[in-house]
């Protein structure tokens, strides 16, 4: 098979490969952004790459904090800074609660998986749809999933699973 490779990216005159990859998954993105693009550090990239205007997923300004990417930096969850992050989990209609260690989970997917194991469908909801909510520092109850996973780990005081 013939491979034609030039120095310029295959189908584009002028924009960098990064934007190509942006287009590649700019479509059909699910509502939960798995990662954020770091578009605020253009000043650091002296190579003339044009990062601005490339935002697809939501950009959340976090002040001085590094933007959160899934799985970056590549440290195992055991090596991440541990707060005492065991939080109580209660499920609507289930008398006995559980505790889950948020810092042992690397993503929302892993949390949902653990919760499904802790509260199997046989107990009360028989596979009905449910929503996982968490209590924030100021007492408000929020739906999990809107903010990057790491932020939820830091701010969640306890969880409640509600039947929808």
């Amino acid at each position: 098979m013939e491979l034609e490779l030039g120095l310029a990216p295959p189908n584009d005159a002028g924009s960098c490969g990064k934007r190509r990859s942006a287009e590649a998954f700019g479509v059909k993105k699910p509502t939960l952004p798995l990662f954020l693009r770091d578009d605020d550090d253009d000043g650091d990239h002296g190579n003339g790459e044009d990062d601005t205007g490339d935002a697809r997923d939501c950009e959340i300004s976090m002040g001085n904090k590094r933007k959160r990417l899934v799985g970056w930096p590549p440290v195992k969850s055991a090596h991440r800074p541990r707060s005492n992050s065991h939080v109580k989990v209660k499920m609507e209609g289930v008398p006995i609660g559980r505790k889950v260690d948020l810092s042992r989970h690397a993503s929302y997917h892993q949390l949902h998986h653990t919760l499904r194991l802790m509260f199997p469908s046989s107990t009360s909801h028989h596979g009905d749809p449910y929503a996982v909510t968490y209590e924030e520092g100021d007492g408000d109850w929020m739906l999990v999933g809107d903010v990057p996973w790491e932020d939820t780990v830091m701010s969640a005081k306890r969880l409640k699973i509600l039947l929808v």
Partner: protein
Amino acid sequence: RKQKDNDTASLSTPSSPDALPAAAASPRAPPARASRRVASPGPATARAAPMGRGGARDGAAAAPPWHSLPDEVLEHAFSFLPAAADRGAAAAVCHGWLGAERRSRRRLAVANCYAAAPRDAVDRFPSVRAAEVKGKPHFADFGLVPPAWGAEAAPWVAAAADGWPLLEELSFKRMVVTDECLEMIASSFRNFQVLRLVSCEGFSTAGLAAITEGCRNLRELDLQENYIEDCSSHWLSYFPESFTSLETLNFSCLEGEVNFAVLERLVSRCRNLKTLKLNNAIPLDKVASLLRKAPQLVELGTGKFSAEYHSDLFAKLEAAFAGCKSLRRLSGAWDAVPDYLPAFYCVCEGLTSLNLSYATVRGPELIKFISRCKNLQQLWVMDLIEDHGLAVVAGSCSKLQELRVFPSDPFGAGQVLLTERGLVDVSASCPMLESVLYFCGQMTNEALITIAKNRPNFTCFRLCILEPRTPDYVTRESLDAGFSAIVESCKGLRRLSVSGLLTDLVFKSIGANGNCLEMLSIAFAGNSDLGLHYILSGCKTLKKLEIRDCPFGNKPLLANAAKLETMRSLWMSSCSLTLGACRQLAEKMPRLTVEIMNDPGRTCPVESLPDDSPVETLYVYRTIAGPRSDTPDYVQIV
């Protein structure tokens, strides 16, 4: 006289008795380790000839032709081959050697649990006593693989229970091990001795209880970084009072309490205990009393190392450690009160390994402690040590071989604790340094070039600059020059992770110079397909390639499809791949499994999607087992 190609498993025999089967020169064996002890002609075989079936030969007769050496002779010869690669090379010589080798192999390492079916592995190597199986791809460690992906240990345990009743050692890494698996292990192997579980999940303390109760000859129970559900079953209590064979006990990853009195009695009666790694539930004063019971320990992992300072606790610790003359390896979760560190000074001189990667202790006490460890070979530490701490390490630990520096605040404000200076100092002053994992905030080409010049002996170089695409902070250029210097200088480099701002050019250098490279990790790098093409068309010995967030597309993948069969696996996530190319790859290469992974929220079948659909994650691996049948709904095999 016919010349035989070393690599073919030839059916016909060498035509001349003097033709030396050149198994030792097989290209598959890593050059440095190629065995030179594979049977040499002459006196050695004449001496060996009377063994086994060929008993009629007398010692003075001519050496027997190679093809009629009895199996026992071959098996005995093969038992001296140190590396699995050498045994594989020997097996490729001819059918006779193939049979003798596979029937006598004792240790089997399956680096990808889906590369072969468990039954086939057990049938092929019926005498295995020690098996190691690895499951999920490496990036699963960082949360890039959603739960229920697969890698279940159960089929392997079932096949082993059936075909390897004499199995003594079992090791699983990144696999799902259930309590049922542990129960089956406990009841299937009467001489089971070693259980090692690394980065596994799916089991609880109830499963551990089955092991401690059922494995009467257990020597090692080594649990590293697993996620273990705490069922509050007193698994430690299930060791019978008559049980004394334990040599290694590592439960550092366990969250819950253990019965300390039971632990103490266990430690007292297991006189061969060499490795003891406790969990966070064991406070300092209890550590002291355990050490008094087990002064013969070689490796200790302390539990929770924070306690208010008491002068008598200090004295207790000091006395306990003074009794441990054999202690060589130390680790623990040291939220330490630095004031306790001097209690350990007596063991510093003997330490070869120090793992403080969970320790938030910092400051002059920490550095003073490390500086006394003159014989340290392995140091794992947090970036709280800072550049000046590493400068002290450079000056004190001249025997250092491996350094790992972890980020204390990976998501934080970017306060730079550690720069390139620390690594430059250590690599300048530690002549035996060959393995580095370094997380830092900034880097320059000049530093990397200096490091490369000082340390051409690196075998493993993993640099992670915390912010993706960070350039040389002085020149603002890419770090191409720096990493190129590394691969050009370190001719024996086997593992490399790159980071920072990098263009396709660095991959040209890696492809051309990475002649021993086996594992390469790339993130947020490159500008076009060319980057991936350089890697796949170069890097002759590449086994594992993992890539995330790079602008690499379909063309280099398809152009280098054959290369993928020479590798163990390829991971590409958040790149520029489309479904059509994956389909073509799968069709072209029937001995590869091409797995596509999309967001678990989306489960539409892959058959219905058009060729230009983007592929979020691609995981490709060679296999002789065909496509696996246990994929979750978010994984599709193309």
